[in-house]
């Protein structure tokens, strides 16, 4: 009996600790979302502002109009979708070559290709900005999209999966006269769907959330601005309208939260694949 009580107390203690930590982790999101759901003056009235009462969509609506968020959401959506599709295609093609084709210097080429994973965006933006400038790609979708269309990590990830497919599948296909593109499209890609899903999800998130490169290649052109960059303008507006930032945050983060809830498993798979890559 005593042991049972002790175990029960330990369990209760653990729950208390879990709840306390959950509150701490969630609090910033909770506070900001709540603030976004209140009118301006009311949000200054603590602690009443921390209770879910007097809710309204007016702040979000105001942020939407003021920040032209509909347009920015569409921009982000368009850029992220195109980059995601592009990365999946370029990764599939290059991974296929590295996994199934015979050609000279395959090994060294692959190693050199992988090595470029070590070069962070923070290093290349200096020059890429000038390249984009000379191509006339400042303030354009091309500028946002094209530099991100290839992913070394994607090639690596997909090649790993291709190498795990039974070699006899490719041989059986070769005997049946199946060409490379058809094998890639009808056999290799469908059999790699979970990995492609994880790669797609990651690419989408990465593109949606990107900050440095969009902030350099888009210079105040709302027609092409992504939502992440647009948030900054809301922040820099009048201090009396600072509340609008919270509305913008909700609009910018909501699509990603929904996606992650829907694709939690792919996310974990992608992250752990990343952890294994070292």
């Amino acid at each position: 009996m005593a042991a049972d009580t002790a175990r029960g107390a330990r369990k209760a203690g653990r729950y208390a600790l879990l709840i306390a930590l959950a509150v701490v982790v969630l609090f910033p999101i909770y506070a900001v979302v709540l603030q976004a759901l209140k009118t301006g003056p009311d949000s200054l009235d603590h602690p009443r502002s921390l209770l879910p009462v007097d809710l309204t969509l007016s702040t979000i609506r105001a942020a939407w109009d003021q920040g032209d968020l509909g347009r920015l959401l569409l921009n982000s959506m368009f850029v992220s979708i195109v980059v995601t599709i592009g990365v999946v295609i370029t990764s599939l093609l290059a991974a296929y070559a590295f996994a199934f084709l015979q050609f000279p210097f395959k090994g060294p080429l692959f190693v050199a290709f992988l090595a470029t994973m070590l070069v962070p965006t923070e290093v290349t933006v200096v020059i890429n900005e000038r390249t984009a400038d000379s191509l006339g790609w400042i303030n354009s979708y091309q500028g946002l999209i094209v530099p991100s269309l290839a992913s070394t990590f994607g090639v690596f990830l997909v090649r790993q999966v291709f190498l795990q497919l039974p070699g006899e599948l490719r041989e059986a296909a070769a005997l049946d006269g199946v060409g490379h593109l058809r094998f890639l499209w009808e056999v290799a890609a469908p059999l790699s769907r979970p990995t492609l899903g994880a790669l797609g999800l990651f690419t989408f998130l990465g593109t949606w959330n990107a900050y440095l490169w969009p902030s350099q290649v888009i210079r105040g052109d709302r027609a092409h601005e992504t939502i992440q960059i647009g948030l900054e303008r809301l922040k820099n507006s009048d201090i009396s309208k600072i509340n609008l930032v919270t509305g913008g945050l909700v609009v910018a983060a909501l699509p990603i939260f929904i996606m992650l809830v829907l694709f939690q498993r792919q996310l974990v798979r992608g992250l752990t694949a990343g952890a294994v890559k070292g």
Partner: protein
Amino acid sequence: MDCVAQVRLEHISKTFGDGADAVLAVDDVTLDIEHHEFMILLGPSGCGKSTLLRMVAGLEDPSAGDVFIADRRVNDIEPKQRDVAMVFQSYALYPHKTVAANIEFPLKVRGVGKAQRATEARAAAEVLGLEQQLKRKPGQLSGGQRQRVALARAIVRNPAVFLMDEPLSNLDAKLRGDTRAELVDLHRRLDSTFIYVTHDQIEAMTMGTRVAVLNNGRLQQVGTPQDVYDRPATAFVAQFIGTPPMNLLPPGMLGTDDVQVGIRPEHLRLVPGGQLHATVKQVEHLGHEILLVADANGAKVVARLDPSEFVPEVGDPVAFDADPGRLHRFSTTTGERVS
């Protein structure tokens, strides 16, 4: 159909790797396979039989020698243009496609129309009794059914040559027996040449019109199953074919002088005063027969006895005799048959 060899291998060699690591997998093999033969490539694992088959398919390039299919040299011809179909040990079915789609796929690649594809796939499925499985995926099938799908996928192409790489090795013993009979039946119904790789001598004996025995990349003997059993060309063939294997006695026993002598267990008779003296080490009762394992001066001797005969016990001294006509003589140096 003229009677040219359907598949001809001329002085084929295959080396894997290079330099000091080079391995000679196939060593100067020459073999003619006639139209509508059921040729078995038989040998222990690593003997080069699968490599030989893959060179016929075009999945490996020979290091030396020529491959001919229907009198056409195919060394530089792509696999798909060789008019061959292959059934793999793992079956190599596309896991995400239905059985019907798997069978149709080779036709689809060749640009056959949808309706015709479906008809031909259905016909192939009927040959193998797969009509009920057409809508399923390979993962939902038993091993035997998967094996039939792989066969159907090969049949649907109507190739001149069927290549099979140990297609039964993933089946359980009972299913293997049934499938052997079906393959023989299939071969009879189709106007195609079969080349079949196996390490299982029972498959070789029961299905093949001829058997080519390989060891260490070298062709040991080619002949009908009975031929290979009755007159093994080398000591290796003698011991590889037959269960339990042929007894191989060192020179000096059973009245021989300078050659090894082989005698099958069923040809040894227990005769008081026989010339081969031995001590019984083990008696195995198998029901329909009894295997007597004995030691003759350090040489292991196995004899097959009828259960109705007198059976000695472990430790008993025994003497065997054999009909001289049943003896096989092999050179002690080359292992080749003498006379």
